[in-house]
C-alpha cells in the first residue's frame, strides 16, 4: 500500500514537474520567438563581457557598489520597460568604464546578447545589430540561468571577472627587500606635531588641514617649478592616493595593494611589497597609508589590515578587518591614534554584519574596539529607521579616514548615506537612519560614542556627508568643519557636537532652507512626496558639490579652500526587493549641467572659517579631482580631470602656475623637504566613482589616455634653491 501511495505521489510529482516544465518551455518558446540575437552572439558576448564588464558588474552580473546589476530583478526594474536598442546605445555611449565607445560595434552587440540571455531571454535566429527596438520585458524575465548565476569562483578579494580596471598580470609578493639605514621611528609626539619636512599623515596633520609650513616655493617663484622625477605606478584599479613622507622616504600605496618605498629625493625604489589581490575593477582606491613607530600600515581593498616593516617592507602582521569572501571593501585610508590603527569599512550592503569603524593595536594587530555605524532595533537610534528590519538597514559606510584630537582623545569620522539611496525605495520615511550621513565622535581608546550629529536626516539622493572632518580652533572654541555632497559647509563644536553654523558653497535644490539655530535642513516639498519609479531632480548630482577630493585649511589666512563639482541629475528609485544578501538596485540617474554655471563643472572656492564668508571662487569646465594642498608660500595646489595641475595664490585664487600631465590628475598633492629642497608631489590616476564618471560622461570634448598612473615630483631649479638657502 505504501509502495502504491509512493508511486502515486511520484506520478503526481512527475505530472506536476512535466506541467511546470511544459509551462516553462512554453514561456521560453514565447520569449525565444522574439529574442533578437543568436546563440553564437551570446557565447561570444560571454567572453567579451568577462573581459570588459565582469570586473565591475561581477561574473554573475549581480553588480556591486555603484555598478548596477545587469541580471535579475534589479536589471529588469531598470531596463524591462526599455528597448534593446536603448540598452545597446546606453552601454555603447558609456562603457566600458573609462573607455566609453572603445569596443567595436559587433562586440557591443554580443555583450547585449549575453546580458539578455543572462536575463532569461532565449537566442533566436536573427543576429542583433543594435537597431532592434524590442521591449526587454517582452523577451526577458530576469531569471538568471544557473551557470551564470553561480559561476566558478576565482581567487582574490571578492572581485571576479575582468573589466576596465583590471590590472595587468604580475607576480605578487615582496619583489624588493629594503635595507633602509636612516629611519627614525615615528612617535606619538611626532604625529601630534609633524615636522613640515615630512608628510606623516594622510591630510598632513591630525586636523586634516592638508597644509604645510614650507615656503621655499612661494607665490613669487612658483612659475619656476620644474619636474624633478616621476615614477610609473601600477595600472588597473582606481588610483587616487597621496604619498606619505618621512626621513626622505616616500611610502606610496599603489593599486593592487602594492606598497613601495622610494627615495623622496631621486625616486629610487627602496623596497616593494605587492600584497594583492590584483585589481579587477576601476574602483576602490587606496587613498592613503600610515606610518607609526617602525611600521607602515595599509588597509587593503580586500578588507585586510597589514603592518609592514618600514625599513624592509617585510610583513610584520596581518589581520582581517572583515570576513573574507563576502565582498567587504576598504577604500578610505586609515589613521593611527594613540597606539591604535583605526579603519573604516565599505560595501556592507544587504548583508550582515553592518559597516563599522574598528581599531587595532598597532604593535600586534589585535582588534581593540568596533563601532557599528548602523543603529540596530532596540539600541539607541534604532528607532530612526522606521520599520526597516535590521538586516535591511544598509549604508553608513566609512570610506574616508577620520581625524583625531589628541587633547580630547577623540577620533572624528563621517559616514555615508543610507541605502538604497531613495527614501521611497528604502521605506524609511524621512527618519534620520542613524548613523548614516553623520559625524561620529568616538573615544580613541574605547570606541565609545561621545556624540553624534546627523547632518542630513532622511537624505535621499546619494548625497554623502562622509568626507574629511577638519579640526580648527577659533579662539577658545574648538570646532569641526566638514562639507558633504550637498555642498553645505558645516561648523560644529567638536567638544559637544553642537551645531554652530552652515554655509552653502555650490548650487543645490534638494533643500529649500535651514534652521540656523539647530542646523535642521528643510527638504524641497516635492522631495518628501517622492514615489518609486518616478524621476525627480537633484542638484548636485551624486558626484557631489563636494566629494572625496579634500579641502585644505590655511591657518595664516584662516581660509578653507574647497574643490567643488557642479552637475545635477534626475534620479529614479526602484522598488527594492527586501532580501538579505542581495545587492540592492538603488536607482537610476540621468545627468545634466547645473543651472547658472554655463556648463562649467569645476569650482574652487575659499571660505574664511571664522565668519563662514566666501572670499573668492572661480569656475572651469573640468572637475577638480585632487585634494587641495596649501602652503605657507601663499599657494594652493590642485589638479583636475583635464590633466592640469596648478598652483593658485591662496589669498586671491589667481592661477600662478600650471602643468599638463599625461592623464587625469587624481589623488592628493603633498609637499616635503629633503636636503634643503622643497618638493611637491602629485599622482595621476584613473578610475573611481561619481567624481570621475560624471565628467567622463558629460565632458565629451575632453580626452585622456586610459592609462598613465604615476607620481610626479616638482621643485625649483637647483640654482634657485641654493640661492634661497
Amino acid at each position, binding site marked *: 500500500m505504501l509502495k502504491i501511495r509512493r508511486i502515486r505521489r511520484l506520478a503526481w510529482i512527475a505530472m506536476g514537474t512535466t506541467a511546470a516544465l511544459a509551462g516553462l518551455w512554453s514561456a521560453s518558446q514565447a520569449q525565444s520567438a522574439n529574442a533578437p540575437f543568436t546563440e553564437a552572439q551570446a557565447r561570444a558576448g560571454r567572453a567579451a563581457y568577462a573581459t570588459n564588464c565582469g570586473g565591475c558588474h561581477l561574473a554573475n552580473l549581480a553588480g556591486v557598489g555603484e555598478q548596477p546589476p545587469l541580471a535579475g530583478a534589479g536589471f529588469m526594474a531598470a531596463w524591462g520597460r*526599455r528597448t534593446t*536598442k*536603448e540598452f545597446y*546605445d*546606453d*552601454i*555603447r*555611449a*558609456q*562603457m566600458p568604464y573609462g573607455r566609453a565607445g572603445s569596443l567595436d560595434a559587433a562586440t557591443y552587440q554580443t555583450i547585449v546578447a549575453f546580458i539578455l540571455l543572462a536575463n532569461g531571454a532565449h537566442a533566436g535566429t536573427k543576429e542583433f545589430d543594435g537597431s532592434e527596438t524590442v521591449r526587454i520585458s517582452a523577451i526577458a524575465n530576469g531569471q538568471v540561468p544557473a551557470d551564470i548565476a553561480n559561476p566558478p569562483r576565482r581567487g582574490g578579494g571578492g572581485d571576479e571577472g575582468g573589466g576596465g580596471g583590471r590590472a595587468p598580470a604580475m607576480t605578487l609578493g615582496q619583489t624588493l627587500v629594503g635595507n633602509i639605514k636612516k629611519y627614525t621611528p615615528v612617535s606619538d609626539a611626532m604625529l601630534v606635531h609633524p615636522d613640515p619636512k615630512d608628510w606623516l599623515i594622510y591630510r598632513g596633520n591630525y586636523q586634516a588641514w592638508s597644509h604645510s609650513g614650507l615656503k621655499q616655493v612661494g607665490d613669487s617663484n612658483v612659475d619656476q617649478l620644474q619636474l624633478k622625477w616621476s615614477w610609473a605606478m601600477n595600472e588597473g584599479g582606481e588610483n587616487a592616493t597621496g604619498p606619505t613622507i618621512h626621513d626622505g622616504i616616500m611610502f606610496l600605496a599603489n593599486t593592487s595593494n602594492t606598497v613601495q618605498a622610494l627615495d623622496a629625493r631621486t625616486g629610487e625604489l627602496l623596497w616593494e611589497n605587492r600584497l594583492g589581490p590584483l585589481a579587477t575593477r576601476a574602483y576602490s582606491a587606496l587613498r592613503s597609508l600610515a606610518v607609526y613607530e617602525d611600521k607602515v600600515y595599509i588597509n587593503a581593498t580586500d578588507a585586510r589590515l597589514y603592518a609592514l616593516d618600514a625599513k624592509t617592507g617585510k610583513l610584520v602582521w596581518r589581520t582581517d578587518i572583515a570576513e573574507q569572501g563576502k565582498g567587504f571593501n576598504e577604500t578610505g585610508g586609515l589613521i593611527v591614534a594613540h597606539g591604535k590603527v583605526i579603519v573604516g569599512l565599505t560595501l556592507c550592503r544587504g548583508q550582515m554584519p553592518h559597516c563599522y569603524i574598528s581599531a587595532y593595536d598597532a604593535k600586534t594587530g589585535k582588534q581593540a574596539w568596533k563601532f557599528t555605524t548602523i543603529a540596530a532595533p532596540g539600541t539607541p537610534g534604532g528607532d530612526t529607521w522606521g520599520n526597516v528590519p535590521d538586516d535591511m538597514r544598509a549604508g553608513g559606510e566609512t570610506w574616508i579616514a577620520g581625524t583625531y584630537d589628541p587633547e580630547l582623545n577623540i577620533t572624528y569620522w563621517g559616514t555615508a548615506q543610507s541605502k538604497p539611496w531613495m527614501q521611497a525605495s528604502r521605506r524609511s520615511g524621512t527618519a534620520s537612519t542613524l548613523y548614516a550621513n553623520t559625524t561620529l565622535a568616538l573615544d580613541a581608546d574605547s570606541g565609545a560614542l561621545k556624540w553624534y550629529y546627523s547632518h542630513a536626516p532622511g537624505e535621499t539622493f546619494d548625497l554623502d556627508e562622509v568626507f574629511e572632518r577638519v579640526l580648527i580652533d577659533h579662539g577658545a572654541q574648538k570646532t569641526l568643519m566638514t562639507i558633504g555632497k550637498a555642498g553645505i559647509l558645516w561648523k560644529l563644536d567638536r567638544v559637544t557636537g553642537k551645531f554652530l553654523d552652515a554655509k*552653502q*558653497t*555650490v*548650487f*543645490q*535644490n534638494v533643500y*529649500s*532652507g*535651514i*534652521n*540656523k*539655530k539647530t542646523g535642521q535642513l*528643510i527638504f*524641497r*516639498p*516635492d522631495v518628501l512626496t517622492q514615489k518609486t519609479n518616478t*524621476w525627480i*531632480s537633484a*542638484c548636485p548630482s551624486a558626484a557631489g558639490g563636494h566629494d572625496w577630493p579634500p579641502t585644505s585649511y590655511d591657518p595664516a589666512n584662516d581660509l578653507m579652500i574647497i574643490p567643488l563639482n557642479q552637475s*545635477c*541629475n*534626475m534620479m529614479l528609485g526602484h522598488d527594492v526587493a527586501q532580501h538579505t544578501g542581495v545587492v540592492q538596485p538603488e536607482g*537610476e*540617474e*540621468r*545627468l*545634466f*549641467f*547645473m*543651472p*547658472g554655471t*554655463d*556648463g*562649467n563643472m569645476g*569650482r574652487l*572656492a575659499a571660505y574664511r572659517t571664522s565668519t563662514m*564668508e*566666501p*572670499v*573668492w*571662487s*572661480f*569656475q*572651469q*569646465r573640468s572637475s577638480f579631482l585632487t585634494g587641495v594642498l596649501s602652503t605657507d608660500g601663499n599657494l594652493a595646489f590642485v589638479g583636475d580631470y583635464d590633466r592640469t595641475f596648478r598652483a*593658485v595664490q591662496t589669498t586671491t*585664487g*589667481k*592661477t600662478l602656475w600650471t602643468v599638463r600631465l599625461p592623464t587625469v590628475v587624481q589623488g592628493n598633492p603633498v609637499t616635503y623637504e629633503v636636503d634643503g629642497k622643497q618638493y611637491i608631489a602629485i599622482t595621476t590616476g584613473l578610475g573611481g566613482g561619481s567624481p570621475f564618471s560624471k565628467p567622463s*560622461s558629460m565632458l565629451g570634448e575632453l580626452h585622456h589616455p586610459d592609462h598613465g598612473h604615476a607620481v610626479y615630483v616638482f621643485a625649483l631649479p637647483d640654482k634657485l634653491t641654493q640661492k634661497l638657502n
Partner: protein
Amino acid sequence: MRCRRLALSAIVLAGAFAGAVQAAEQKYATRLTAVAYDGAMRANVQGDGQVSATLDGSKLTVSGRFTSLPSSATSARLYSGAGIGVPGSALLDLQLNGQTDGSLSGSFTLNSKQLAALRQGHVYVQINSQKAPEGNLWGWLLPDHPFPGVDVPEQGHGFLPQLDVPGNWIEK
C-alpha cells in the same frame, strides 16, 4: 522763465520715468545644454544654445539661438517646475525658426503666478526635436549676471542661484 522751469521739470520727470522703466526691466539669461540624459539618450540630446529674456512689468520678451541639434527642432516652450533645476510642465509656446540650427523668440504677458515662477528662477526654456520629442536642450532663466571667465577668480561666492535668486533659500 516759467517755460524753462516747466521744460526742466519735464526733462527731470522723463529721466525719472526712464530710470524707473529701466529699474523695472529685469534681464534673464541661460545657456541651453542637454536635458537630463543617460547613455541611451545621449546621441539625441546634443547641441548648444543661448537665450536671453527681458521682463518689463509683466511683459516678457524672449529671444535665443541654438545650434548642432542631432535632429530638427519641433517645438520650443517655456516650462515651469517646483524649483531651479526641477523640470515641470509647459507654460507658453515660443516661436521657432530653423531646424538643427536656428532661433527662438516670444513675447508674453505673464500672470502673477507665472511672474512669481520666473522671478524665483523656476522657468526654463526647452527645445524638443524629432529624435528627442520630450526634450533636447534646456536652460533655466536666471537673472543675468557677469561671468568673469573660466579660471578667473571673483570675490565672494560668485553667482549661486539659490542664494542670488530670491525665494529659493530660507534661513529660519
